[in-house]
């Protein structure tokens, strides 16, 4: 496959159709794994980002996952559910206790104590006066609830969001997402979704080196849309992009001001970044307060699907409507898992840990950059890190094949992570990870980069 015609499908992750992936399968799958792998391919619909899968897992615990042959991988992806680590004993215990209570599912016209406790907890920890909650099983649905709430509150329907963003798979969430992969060949999506560029301080089409200039250009794009489409319901974004690009405080302050000026709501999708990952409980605490905060993934304690929105008191205006009408809205087991996960994050001070270890990890990666010419840039906030591989530090040409080769080499050495945008290695370990494990990851990355360099 040539780099040109496959470029767009890398945005959300490494795809499963490449030659390097084939080679990895041939060389690494045991007979036992091949057997299950083949069945997976037989019974599941094939998609570019799941089946055919990488390999078959038998365990996920702490910062690690393990395949059927017992091989362990330090997991720097975890689909974002593992802020408290996989299989945390306290979360497991809470789930078991809830199972023994014989209160798991709760029909949605009734309420129950765990659901209310989780809502109360979120209202307490969420910044400012974000205090009204609504739950659903998945992040994608939570994004839809946020969009629907914004429509109801503003009486408008248009949105601004960012190219390359992922907000979920439903047609509403996919419309505000900015990826070819979820846009093309599926026909018309929900109308009114305008897209602009997210700041990128390392790589931007204008060749700007100063952050202020990048911010100014991105704000200009937003304002330009708002001037022509002033009836905007909302702007939705991840405060820190998946890549990650960490915008300046000035950028989000500017966006907040534009939203206020035009009466558009600001929605932050913190499905990945919320609950400690960036070194604060919520990523928005580095910046400005949104009108709606969307949470998911680790909200289910790393075990159960659970997600939701948190918003202001004044938006509690839907008494005769339904924006979230999800069967599992009040699932007590999901709520108990989420509550336990939050307690772990608090009692183990995982936000602070993400801050400290994030800095440690970041410095180690910068050290690696000094050694490995393939690394063009190291970015991130807390334990939400990324390294961008380039063929040439001057031209910044993306080192796409190299990135994939590094990924598979690391995988063979027991380190799992995801590649996005073709050349960015994204590193998002469990927040319970230790310094030694970070050292191990850095060593593996070093060896993988070294091996790929010498192959070239």
């Amino acid at each position, binding site marked *: 496959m040539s780099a040109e015609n496959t470029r767009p499908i890398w945005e959300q992750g490494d*795809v499963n159709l490449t030659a390097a992936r084939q080679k990895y399968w041939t060389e690494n799958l045991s007979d036992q794994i091949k057997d299950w792998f083949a069945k997976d391919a037989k019974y599941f619909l094939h998609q570019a980002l799941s089946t055919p*899968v990488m*390999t078959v897992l038998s365990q996920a615990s702490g910062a690690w996952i393990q*395949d059927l042959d017992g091989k362990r991988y330090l997991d720097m992806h975890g689909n974002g559910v593992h802020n408290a680590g996989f299989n945390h004993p306290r979360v497991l215990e809470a789930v078991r206790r809830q199972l023994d209570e*014989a*209160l798991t599912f*709760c029909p*949605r016209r009734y309420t129950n104590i765990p659901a209310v406790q989780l809502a109360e907890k979120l209202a307490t920890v969420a910044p400012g006066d974000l205090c009204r909650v609504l739950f659903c099983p998945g992040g994608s649905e939570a994004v839809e609830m946020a969009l629907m*709430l914004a429509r109801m509150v503003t009486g408008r329907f248009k949105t601004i969001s960012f190219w390359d963003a992922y907000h979920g798979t439903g047609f509403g969430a996919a419309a505000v997402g900015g990826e070819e992969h979820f846009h093309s060949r599926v026909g018309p999506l929900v109308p009114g979704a305008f897209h602009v560029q997210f700041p990128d301080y390392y790589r931007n089409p204008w060749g700007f080196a100063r952050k202020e200039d990048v911010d100014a250009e991105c704000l200009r794009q937003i304002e330009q849309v708002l001037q022509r489409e002033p009836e905007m319901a909302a702007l939705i974004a991840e405060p820190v992009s998946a890549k990650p690009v960490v915008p300046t405080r000035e950028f989000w302050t500017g966006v907040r001001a534009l939203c206020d000026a035009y009466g558009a709501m600001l929605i932050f999708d913190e499905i990945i970044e919320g609950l400690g990952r960036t070194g604060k409980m919520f990523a928005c605490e580095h910046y400005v307060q949104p009108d709606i905060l969307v949470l998911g993934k680790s909200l289910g304690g790393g075990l*159960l699907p659970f997600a939701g929105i948190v918003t202001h008191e004044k938006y509690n205006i839907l008494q005769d409507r339904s924006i979230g009408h999800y069967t599992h809205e009040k699932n007590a087991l999901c709520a108990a898992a989420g509550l336990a996960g939050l307690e772990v994050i608090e009692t183990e001070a995982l936000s602070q840990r993400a801050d400290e270890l994030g800095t440690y990890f970041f410095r180690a990666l910068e050290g690696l950059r000094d050694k490995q010419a393939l690394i063009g840039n190291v970015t991130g906030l807390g334990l939400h890190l990324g390294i961008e591989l380039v063929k040439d530090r001057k031209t910044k040409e993306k080192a796409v094949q190299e990135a994939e080769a590094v990924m598979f080499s690391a995988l063979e050495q027991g380190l799992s992570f995801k590649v996005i945008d073709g050349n960015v290695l994204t590193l998002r370990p469990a927040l319970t990870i230790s310094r030694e494990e970070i050292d191990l990851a850095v060593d593996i990355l070093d060896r993988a980069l070294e091996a790929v360099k010498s192959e070239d």
Partner: protein
Amino acid sequence: MNDQHRSEGDINSSPQRQAWQEQNLDAASRALLDADRRYFLQQSLSTPCLNGLQHCKGIYLEDLQGRRYMDFHGNNVHQVGFANPKVLETIKQQLDDCSFCTRRYTHQKAVDLARKLTELAPGDLNKVLLCPGGTGAVGMALKLARVATGRHKTISMWDSFHGASLDAVSVGGEDVFRKDMGPLLPGTEHVPPPDEYHCFYECYERGGCDLMCAKYVEYILEKEGDIAAVLAEPVRSTPYIPKPEYWQRIRQACDRHGALLIFDEIPHALGRTGKMFTCENFDVIPDMLVIGKGLGGGVFPLAALIVREKLDVAGDRALGHYTHEKNPVACAAGLAAIEYIEEQDLAQQAFELGRHALETMQAMMSRHALIGDVRGLGLLLGIELVKDRSTRERAVEEAETVMYKALSKGLSFKLTMGSILTLTPPLTISRQELDQALAIIESCISEVEQGDRHVG
């Protein structure tokens, strides 16, 4: 309150509900409801909730005051009863074994569940995709229909519910979700549902169903010429039970016009209608089958899209990109639920008990003028209350009063269209318990007929 709002369920702002709560709730229950009301966004069909629960076990809900209610609604997750011991035990074992699997990997339990579903599903419905919620699964079906046909239009039904996201609301037909929501997905044609009792085409004036409603679907398929899919519940929860010829005719028309037939069996698959899948009652095999709710064993959020082999055509796209696509605990729960349904022969049980219940309801109808119609398919049952049998005017207030009276006597169920007592007991119910529940309903109807509107 506009009666149209009631198609999905009884709403939470009626005077009867207030009266019931005043007479039945103690201080602790009220405190929980107040907290629920304080932290959750209010919506017409959930918060403010009716009551708080401390257990959901077997066929019973138990409130904070220790009162037990047979649950004939259960959001339709409870085919195997709540907190089914086999399901709970399996979940605990799976928690010990492997509690999460990220989606670029697979897990044996996910594969086992997919295989089981393909074995159970009729015809060549052989390919599966999983996600946590039914809404998401409907979205995946719509996306696949677009990719497979290269078209985007759909035909679905007024009054139907397919989920709460913007896409699912677009194909759904209820104003509580659609009204004031602004532009939805384009190309979603809607038709009146088959309902012999309140036929939009007034077939009751012509001696009963003459399939005018199916002919209208055929008409649109022909006129538009580029419909991607017809999406419907084979039987509405209401329940509206069409003649087999209805679906057979539409199946043939879909084939003639290159449209796919998608059945949303989220609430009723896995035994409720007396067959494993509802479509088996009609001798029609859809191109895609969407299931959910009870698939999670009454505990976990879990849904599935099951499609014909030839529709495995989106290998380079992402149809569903859900974090919990391969959650092993969810899949283990699903497998346990299906095994339980098979071991206990619950589909057959539903068939037999359903027939018995329908006979009992018919006898009730001969004794009570308030009952305009009784319907059922397996343990999906409905009693429609009318003010006058000749005009068939819906007895909305009476139905609401019957519902709250029944609640006071230990039976919980839901109303649809304001006037239909919709009864979906767990399939594990005994004949004696079923008789007891129907006797409660009859006594409540008698009281209302005698002018007793007391709901305490």
